[in-house]
């Protein structure tokens, strides 16, 4: 244990360096995913046939082992080793949790609320903006949370295709059989994943509209 701490302190600057690369990959991936997958989720919530096609594709992509997907992108001339392949793979993996959560979040909104709103003269854009999105927000955000936690783990694997992030501590550590290195990498990545999960979980709970949290006793 003390060896571990000693190792981490001695190599703090490299570790921080790796950590920042790790974060930048995660956040870039999440940012692109938000822009791509949320609108797609909204789109398929209106079209069942499209929904089953899109969700089928997302599910299939999601099944592909991460090392496999990363490696395949490496073989493509435009992408190669490093950031482009990693980013593309992460964004593709994010498709499943994000699209399905946006889709389900919107679908689950009480139909009689929408009927009443439509009957009052609200147009579809308004209904989406003022009713469906606020009520779907917690579930949609859960998708973002899952994506971030997942990306934390998968980004580590990207170390095998040239990313210089915390995964490197593990890969190098395995090669050199340096136990403290392996442990520091594994524990740090795990801790960051758990931290994200809890913090974002708290945000998710805050997004639940007040009207849904109160009850008659209050």
């Amino acid at each position, binding site marked *: 244990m003390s060896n571990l701490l000693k190792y981490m302190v001695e190599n703090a600057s490299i570790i921080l360096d790796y950590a920042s690369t790790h974060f930048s990959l995660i956040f870039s991936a999440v940012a692109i995913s938000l822009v791509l997958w949320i609108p797609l989720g909204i789109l398929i919530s209106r079209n069942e046939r499209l929904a089953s096609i899109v969700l089928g594709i997302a599910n299939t992509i999601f099944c592909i082992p991460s090392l496999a997907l990363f490696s395949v992108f490496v073989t493509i001339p435009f992408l190669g080793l490093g950031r482009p392949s990693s980013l593309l793979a992460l964004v593709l993996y994010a498709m499943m949790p994000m699209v399905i959560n946006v889709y389900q979040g919107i679908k689950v909104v009480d139909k009689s609320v929408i009927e009443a709103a439509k009957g*009052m003269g609200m147009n579809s854009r308004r209904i989406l903006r003022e009713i469906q999105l606020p009520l779907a927000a917690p579930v949609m955000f859960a998708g973002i949370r899952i994506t971030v936690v997942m990306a934390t783990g998968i980004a580590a694997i990207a170390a095998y295709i040239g990313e210089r992030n915390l995964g490197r501590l593990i890969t190098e550590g395995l090669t050199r059989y340096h136990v403290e290195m392996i442990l520091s990498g594994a524990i740090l990545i795990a801790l960051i994943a758990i931290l994200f999960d809890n913090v974002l979980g708290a945000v998710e709970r805050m997004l639940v*509209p007040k009207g849904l949290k109160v009850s008659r006793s209050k």
Partner: protein
Amino acid sequence: MIELRDVTKIYPGQTVPAVKDLTLKIEEGETCVFVGPSGCGKSTILRMINRMIEQTSGTILINNKDIRETDPDRLRMGIGYVIQQIGLLPHRTIAENIAIVPRLYGWDKERIRKRVDELLELVGLDPDETRAKYPAQLSGGQMQRVGVARAMAADPPIMLMDEPFGAVDPIVRGHLQDEFLKLQREMKKTICFVTHDINEAIKMGDKIAIFEKGQLVQHGTPQEILSNPKNEFVRTFIGYDRVVKMLTLFQVRSITKKNSYSIIRENELANIRQKMDDEQSTVCILMNESTRPCGLITRDDLEKAGEVGPEKIKEIACSRKDAFIDGDLLLNDALSLMLEWNCDCLGVLDGAELIGVISLNDIRECVRRKEGA
């Protein structure tokens, strides 16, 4: 004024139309109740009027303008819409819910605020208590009232109501119906009201339209339908108690006889038979010291009792001390009370003052007259 001309609706993939060749006119200020068994198409018709569903063929006109010529959203803003499940936005306060259509119209905040409070009072809710609450904090009855208030927010001339009082228990429903009738007497909106309950239809409607399997079977006032059901279906739908249902349309006041009874005091009881012969009355009301009615006795009672003294007569009369009803009571309730107190006559009061009597025969005559109509 709403007019439907040869309106038909066939859902895709179905062979049997949900609504077939419907031609119906609803006058301004009229409450027309669409009633019929489940699946008869009544809700479908309602939802075609505000274009929530598009008709397959036929025309629907509102104030002589084809509804297809107006933008659907705009059309709906001008029509109040209340559904059974209410559909309040759960994430908005009551005030925000009611303010929806006014906001769509672009009213300013002050005007909206006033209108919200006005409406909450109108539907019997305390504005200060209710406006900042969320739907989850209200009871079923309260939510239903808010639903109605919300539909009236921009004061639309037309309202469409689909089983609006369906989601509450019968007692609350009765209150809501009464209050809505009172409102309608003041507002005089054109209302289309859907229900599966014939009793609600009779109570709420100026006119009733009965539907079966997508077709209009009979259209008329409650009176017309009850006294002249068009066919076996209507008769069965109304039920065996058709005549008793018709009695709900009349108040005791309308058949009260003012001159066919005698008044007697306790000290005059010995001469009761004489008095009744002299005044040619069939029923006698016993008054107490403060000239308030405290008993009732009929000629039949006296005959059945035979030769008895004033004490016994007083006993018989006072056993009926509750057989006095208010003029506003409905005839069916009066009939029920006659059966309950085993007495063919009831005294009629206005407040605490006696204004007349009604008898079982009076009710019979009323029915005979209306049945002929």
